């Protein structure tokens, strides 16, 4: 036994905890860190109909948090009530399922009063302004005060009464970051409200950390303006407006193109009835919607608002109100997945503008161009050893080289330059196709594009009558571990419609009898291992359809033109035409663009001609 284990051997009589202690315990649930206090206070201001909210903090919110609003205020007589537990003006308690405000529990202010020094100053209508203070749970008297309008809530020395909690706080910087995050989320939820955030750590005016002026205009314009302020113009330029409704569930907002994805889930802003949430169901739906376009290590960027009759969603399931429970979770998931998939499909050909901007940037960086290669690097180039071992029949590593299309007329039928992806002119590094269009040039990642085309074809075949299977002359025997063998045989029934027939074989081996015909000759062993990886990554979390699509995307890689294969002119043009005809071909299965476009004006700019 150790000294910190709960000691139950010496029983004490059951006692009623005093209010201060009870409030402190409850506060633990509501107020985890300065940012949660800010969230409660700003939500109160929003509930009070504020148009402007100014937030100030010092030392990461640990010593001071102040939220001022221009809302309707609290009558002096009700100030003590505002600090009482379970006292709220927002619901009457008769219908917990019809909540239209951020607040509904009457817990926030008493909780804050229990863990810090809290002062509320407020003016209700034309009344005289008044103030009340509470320190470590001890409520003071209501005193007259000066304030032109609204409410100012000030919280000092958070957690001074609970030093244990203070210890768990992160650095000032991290806490300040969390505060700014909270403000940004709420600012997205309410574009028509103006926000400022100041850090007054050093005293005085402090530093303005964030500012969003009230947006006007219709809902979409206001939201777009607000998102531009918060997430940057880049996000809005690369995002698709979303507006869909299904059975009274409404989904609006913006979803970024897959090519604008992030390495972490840092740009996912989800709101349910205007309330910022981090809900697993919704995040899962998002993942499902982008699954076709992004690899698992990329995360979509979105700001999405789900709205429905408050009765259809329970917001009272999480102490910080971060999660919700839908009456019809399938409907919510379905709406998100299908709406986003549809929007992304329509945008299939819009390669992210960030990509081409970045490309342009890279081009410009080259202004000190070395036309004359220096001797040292010339020497390393020409005496570079082949990348591959010399044994066997490996050819030498391909060098950087242009494969010109022999003659434009022979390979590019007339008029193709008017087509979106133009006429192939050359292949670089045995992968990238350079094509000329009427108004610029296109650079295509042939490998990625081909992979996408194969994937789309597989999906189409799958939907029609199953993927055509090529029977193998010599079945391939693949040796596996016992677990892997069981896992792949388990999946055998769902792999058969994908054109992959796997049967048990002696020992720990399986026998591959048929492979998807579209892939041509395949390395069955590598493919089986890839599918196993995919199966274990997916676990049981995905629907059967999602799983099949994930596997198809893996399978598609095996049929693709490897980087390093030289293509003839007609082959390149055929690939371009196929891309034009295939939806979603603007991104590869991993969410990278398959092509980028440089407009004539971009090219001219590179040379300073414009």
């Amino acid at each position, binding site marked *: 036994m150790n000294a910190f284990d709960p000691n139950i051997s010496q029983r004490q009589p059951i006692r009623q905890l005093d209010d201060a202690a009870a409030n402190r315990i409850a506060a633990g649930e509501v107020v985890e860190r300065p940012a949660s206090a800010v969230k409660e206070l700003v939500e109160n201001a929003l509930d009070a109909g504020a148009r402007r909210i100014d937030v100030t903090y010092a030392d990461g919110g640990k010593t001071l948090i102040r939220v001022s609003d221009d809302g309707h205020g609290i009558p002096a007589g009700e100030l003590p009530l505002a600090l009482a537990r379970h006292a709220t003006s927002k619901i009457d308690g008769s219908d917990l399922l019809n909540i239209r405000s951020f607040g509904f529990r009457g817990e926030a202010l008493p909780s804050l009063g229990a863990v810090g020094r809290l002062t509320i100053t407020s003016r209700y209508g034309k009344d005289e302004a008044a103030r009340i203070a509470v320190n470590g749970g001890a409520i003071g008297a209501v005193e007259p005060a000066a304030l032109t309008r609204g409410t100012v809530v000030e919280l000092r020395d958070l957690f001074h009464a609970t030093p244990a909690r203070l210890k768990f706080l992160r650095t000032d910087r991290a806490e300040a970051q969390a505060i700014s995050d909270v403000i940004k989320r709420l600012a997205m939820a309410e574009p028509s409200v103006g926000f400022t955030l100041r850090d007054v750590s050093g005293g005085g005016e402090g530093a303005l950390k964030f500012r969003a002026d009230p947006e006007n205009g219709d809902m979409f314009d206001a939201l777009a303006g607000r998102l531009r302020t918060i997430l940057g113009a880049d996000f809005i330029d690369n995002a698709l407006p979303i507006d869909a409704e299904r059975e009274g569930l409404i989904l609006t907002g913006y979803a970024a193109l897959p090519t604008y994805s992030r390495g972490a889930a840092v740009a996912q802003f989800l709101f349910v009835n205007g309330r910022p949430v981090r809900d697993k169901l919704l995040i899962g739906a998002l993942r499902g919607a982008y699954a076709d376009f992004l690899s698992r290590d990329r995360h979509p960027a979105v700001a999405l608002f789900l709205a429905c009759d408050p009765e259809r969603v329970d917001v009272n399931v999480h102490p910080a109100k971060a999660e919700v429970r839908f009456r019809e979770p399938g409907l919510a998931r379905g709406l998100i997945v299908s709406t986003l998939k549809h929007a992304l499909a329509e945008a299939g050909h819009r390669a992210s503008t960030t990509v081409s901007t970045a490309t342009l940037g890279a081009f410009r960086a080259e202004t000190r161009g070395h036309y004359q290669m220096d001797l040292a690097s010339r020497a390393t180039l020409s005496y570079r050893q082949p990348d591959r071992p010399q044994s*066997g*029949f490996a050819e*030498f590593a391909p060098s950087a080289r242009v494969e010109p299309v022999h003659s434009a007329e022979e390979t590019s039928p007339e008029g193709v330059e008017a087509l979106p992806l133009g006429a192939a002119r050359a292949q670089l590094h045995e992968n990238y196709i350079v094509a000329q269009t009427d108004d610029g040039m296109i650079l295509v990642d042939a490998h990625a594009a081909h992979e996408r085309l194969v994937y789309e074809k597989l999906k189409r075949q799958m939907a029609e009558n199953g993927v055509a299977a090529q029977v193998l*002359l010599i079945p391939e025997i693949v040796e596996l571990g016992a677990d892997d063998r069981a896992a792949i045989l388990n999946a055998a029934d769902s792999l058969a419609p994908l*054109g992959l027939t796997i049967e048990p074989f002696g020992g720990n081996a399986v026998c591959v009898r048929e492979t998807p*015909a579209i892939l*041509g000759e395949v390395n069955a062993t590598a493919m089986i291992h890839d599918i196993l990886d995919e199966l274990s990554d997916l676990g049981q979390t995905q629907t059967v359809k999602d799983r099949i699509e994930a596997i198809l995307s893996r399978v598609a890689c095996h049929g693709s033109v490897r980087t390093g294969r030289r293509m003839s002119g007609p082959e390149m043009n055929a690939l371009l035409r196929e891309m034009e005809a295939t939806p979603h071909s603007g991104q590869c299965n991993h969410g990278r663009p398959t092509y980028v476009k440089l407009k004539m004006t971009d090219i001219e700019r590179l040379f300073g001609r414009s």
Partner: protein
Amino acid sequence: MKVSIERSTLMKAMSRAQSVVERRNTIPILANVLIEAEGDKIAFRATDLDIEVLDTAPAVVSQAGATTVGAHTLHEIVRKLPEGAMVELSDDGTAGRLEISAGRSHFSLATLPKEDFPVMASSEYECNFSVKASVLKRLLDKAKFAISTEETRYYLNGIYMHAAEGAQGKALRCVATDGHRLAQVDAPLPAGAETLPGVIVPRKTVGEVMKLLDDDEAAIAVSVSETKVRFATPEVTLTSKVIDGSFPDYTRVIPQGNNKRLEVDAAEFARAVDRVSTVSSERSRAVKLALDEDRLVLSVNAPDSGAADEELAVAYADEPLEIGFNAKYLLEIAGQVDRENAVFMFNSSGDPTLMREGNDDSAVYVVMPMRV
């Protein structure tokens, strides 16, 4: 070194040598051809480290010697010289230049030391035999379409040449497969080839050897060891490493009991397959063969682009059968038939199908169906 040689003789010798030289080379010496002049001959040696070609031609050698020079450049120069010109090659061994003169043209090319040139280690050949060029050409030509391009199954990236028991007695046999189809081509076993160890001749070597076989009547001397194979005409010797791997036991996959027999004019069949498969843009276009009494209906159904069918009069007297194949595979095997009708032997829609020319068992093809 100082040599004088007639342009067209030089051209012929050079073009065979330079063809093994890889166009993009990261090791400079491999872009070069080794020129050796001695007696009344000049020899050109080129290599990619896996294949070595040694080509000799008669020449007037006024000073023996050796050097190396860029193969493609020399070839280009010789190609552009006028027909019938006398070409003089000279190298004083110190300047690091090869001087080339023909008429009023003069070239000077940078050389690399001949010592740097990697000459393939010589080998003990345990089996030597001679085969007529036309016979070797047929063996390689009819098998090569089935060579695999999947690099991971490297042991299928060539033609398996070995001695076997054929339908007409002992045979020199070439086999190639990519796992979807297989070609097995036999020729009577030449004297001396009885001890032939089975070797896998790489795809590139097959291509290079084919270039040496324009004279049908020429005798090609073949030498084989465990690691190398050599093909020689009086002027040219091509030595190649063989693929280090074991070729699968292909005999088990050649069906013996297929009893549904279709006989069809190969060219007509190929044209029909080609026509119906036009409607599909897929790389793996599936053609369905529906067989009924003396009737074959070929059809393609590509849901996103269209459908086509065509009926052919054929000889077929067995139970009705429907079977699908990759159109490309059908076209390729039908293309191997040049004299008689193509005879297909089927079993069921999931089993290997056999094809041969008339009743000639010296070349058989197996193709696996596609299941749609």
